[in-house]
């Protein structure tokens, strides 16, 4: 197994763990963390899979950079909304389905 493929496998693992946590947890911060774990796994998969057996590839690396900015922005947005939600409701999680 090449290093790149190893990275990809770790990526899958992270994705799986993130997904599991995302479904299981209700607290919004935990879910956001889970989302970020999944995101990292996803980036690893993207770069690892592309570079396995093909050598360094600037394209997925650039994609991941873009993806990171997007993920940071999304997480920040989520935190902003979460903070406001927490201020208004005092709850750390969303109300169950109406």
């Amino acid at each position: 197994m090449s290093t790149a493929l190893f990275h990809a496998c770790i990526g899958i693992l992270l994705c799986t763990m993130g997904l599991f946590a995302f479904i299981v947890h209700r607290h919004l911060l935990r879910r956001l963390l889970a989302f970020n774990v999944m995101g990292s796994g996803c980036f690893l998969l993207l770069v690892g899979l592309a570079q396995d057996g093909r050598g360094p590839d600037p394209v997925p690396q650039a994609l991941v950079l873009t993806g990171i900015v997007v993920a940071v922005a999304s997480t920040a947005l989520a935190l902003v909304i979460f903070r406001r939600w927490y201020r208004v409701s005092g709850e750390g999680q969303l109300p169950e389905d109406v």
Partner: protein
Amino acid sequence: MTVQPATANLLAWLVMLPLAAAVLTMLLPLRLRAAASLVLLAPMTLLALMLGAALATHGPFVLALGGWATPLGIALQADGPAVGMTLLTVAISVPCAIHAAAYLRGHAEAEYFWALFWFLWASLNTIWMSTDIFNLYVGIELLGLAAVGLVALRGDAEALAAAMRYLLAALLGSLAYLIGVALLYGGHGSLSLAHLAQTDHAQATTAVALAAMSLGLALKTALFPLHAWLPPAHGGALTPVSALLSALVIKASFFIMLRLWFALAPPGLSTAATLLGLLGAFAVFWGGWKALRQSRLKHLVAYSTVAQIGYLFLFFPLAIGTGEAAARLAWDGTMLMLISHALAKAAMFLAAGNLILAIGSPRIADLAGIGRYRQFSLLSFGIAGVGIMGLPPSGGFGAKWLLMQSALAGGGWLWVAVLIGGGLLSAAYVFKVFRHAFIEGPKRDRFEDPPAALEITALVLALVSLMIGLAAHGPLTWLRLGTPFGVSE
């Protein structure tokens, strides 16, 4: 087809102008933001019309951004669906913007509404035109965040919870999509849909990638049973926002799904297609049933969206694994359904918002007596309702007719039952509103009078949704340009 750069650039202008508008409306003094946005509607409309004209004269064409051809660069394409959706976006956004300008006047939400509105428009246009799967990812992220921001604008607890729920769904959906991108790039070394379409699809990687992406997009489109985020978000947002979200935003992810399935669907995928169709069928009945049970007007309309999304997903079983004629009818029907639902649902949300303004309450039961005093708003709601119920002569009826013909051509009796049963269910919830509105009694005789701009925009959208059924032949022929269905004639 090669065209002049100036013509091809129309595609990119349709993204750059709204982005520039977003920056502008962020920097302008508060009181000028709405006015500037209204002025900018004119060039947007003009650009979209010019693009339509270019497609009509030159046929489908692409723009290689930065001069870099695919697969190295990113290309935007003008084919029937892309241009059709761009024009639809204009048709929905312009009335919604006019409505919003009047609706938000003097409200704090107006401060950043316009920047978000323009970001939303830019991302929609990107999604309609882009041919690059990663670019589409950035597009749906931009779209999702803009939509979430618009939902959150209201700022109260309910809106924040709805926005948060929506954001979580959107993020999860994007990640599922991104995993598909990773697999496809890993397997085929390209991000361009045109290149991916030429690869061998009959292997597990493509199938898993397509499955992951479809799952993510279905979540963003709120396909049953992944729809739980939609009703609070669409029902709880500001009225013009609800209209934009229901009419356009959920269509964007569905549209990407269509593009992916065209390019990537491996042979023998009818089981998956049937599964999507079945989920669609469940959506039609579950959404309709829940709509009927709502006590708040906008939530009723929002659940109606859940139901109507179901019809869109009938496309997959109707078009995949059936004959050419059936597939073509399914495509026509789905496009018409998409367009007429967009128009009718935007009109319905705007009309519902006007009714709510008039009665000063979000509850359907408080509509009693309004039938006598504010018939104009009620009329718009009714005309939009005709489209939602799929009764003639609306576009919704035409779409159902085409889908039904497709189902009969392919022997899909189940789908016929869904189309007819769903129509009856939607009639039940639309007329529920009227039953309350027509109550005459001593209850009250004072209602607020919504500004004329709010009433007229709703009515215009409603009328267009009604008339599109009678004028669908041309647009449908046009929407087939550059698709697998555009061959004959």
